[in-house]
């Protein structure tokens, strides 16, 4: 039983952690190499990792998507997609896809004369699922070793932990004050009933044995 409980809890919290990791913003320091546009076939489950288009193009399963190609200082390739999130989830309210595309094109630089930029993005890169992180904004970086502090995540996660803690404490207090006494009462009642039954049974038994003589 304990295994099931822990398995359940671990699964639930891992899923929640993964969800946060996918949704919360992250920063990469990269050098933008190029941008391109490609028609994407987004069928059924593949849509999960792509933005929801506005209602007009909802029915269409193919559409053009902009991409931003870049390199980290370490030499790893990073490819971002560039899509509006609009009023949909996740709540980045990004409407300036075309502007961001222009900025990305402006920031293109060569290996010999690199221009380092910070790309804020959310999402995962998966080569098997063809999933790409969505770039949200581009800003200049101090250099290839720049490490931007993710203030938003620090504050957000702290507040989230505080909220969970507040709810947990109140729930425990509620259980101690309101639910546990009731359960105990029921338990006491059951025990009392059990005692009464066994006592009666004892009496019956004595009566029977007295008959037998």
């Amino acid at each position, binding site marked *: 039983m304990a295994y099931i409980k822990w398995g359940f809890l671990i699964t639930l919290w891992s899923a929640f952690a993964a969800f946060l990791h996918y949704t919360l913003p992250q920063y990469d320091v990269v050098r933008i190499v190029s941008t391109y546009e490609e028609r994407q076939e987004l069928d059924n489950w593949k849509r999960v990792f792509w933005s929801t288009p506005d*209602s007009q193009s909802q029915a269409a399963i193919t559409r053009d998507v902009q991409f931003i190609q870049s390199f980290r200082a370490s030499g790893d390739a990073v490819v971002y997609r560039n899509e509006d999130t609009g*009023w*949909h989830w996740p709540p980045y309210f990004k*409407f*300036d896809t075309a502007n961001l595309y222009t900025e990305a094109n402006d920031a293109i630089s060569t290996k010999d004369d690199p221009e380092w930029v910070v790309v804020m993005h959310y999402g995962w890169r998966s080569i098997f699922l063809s999933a790409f992180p969505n770039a949200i904004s581009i800003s200049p970086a101090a250099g290839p070793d720049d490490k931007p502090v993710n203030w938003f995540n620090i504050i957000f996660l702290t507040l989230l932990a505080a909220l969970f803690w507040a709810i947990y404490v109140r729930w425990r207090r509620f259980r101690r004050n309101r639910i546990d006494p009731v359960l105990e009462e029921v338990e006491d009642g059951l025990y009392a009933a059990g005692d009464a039954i066994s006592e009666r049974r004892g009496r019956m038994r004595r009566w029977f044995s007295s008959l037998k003589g």
Partner: protein
Amino acid sequence: MFAFLRLSLLLLVGLTLVYGAVSLYSRERRRAKLKRRWTERGLTGDRRTFIQRGLKQYDHSLRRRLILLVYILPLTAIALVIYVVNFS
């Protein structure tokens, strides 16, 4: 446009639920506090009137109005995010 309406509706319903829950919770806590104060101070007289008066005071208090932040904070946050992501 449809997405915007859907978001507005979801926010309205969700935030109203939160607002209602927080309001009830806060009022019940005030009631418990008044009851405790009654017994602690060993007050005499009509206990019910005492609590009713305390709750009426609570209804006009700043603390109750602060619960409106349940609506204000998320909407401000959304406006801020829209500004930061698109215009700065």
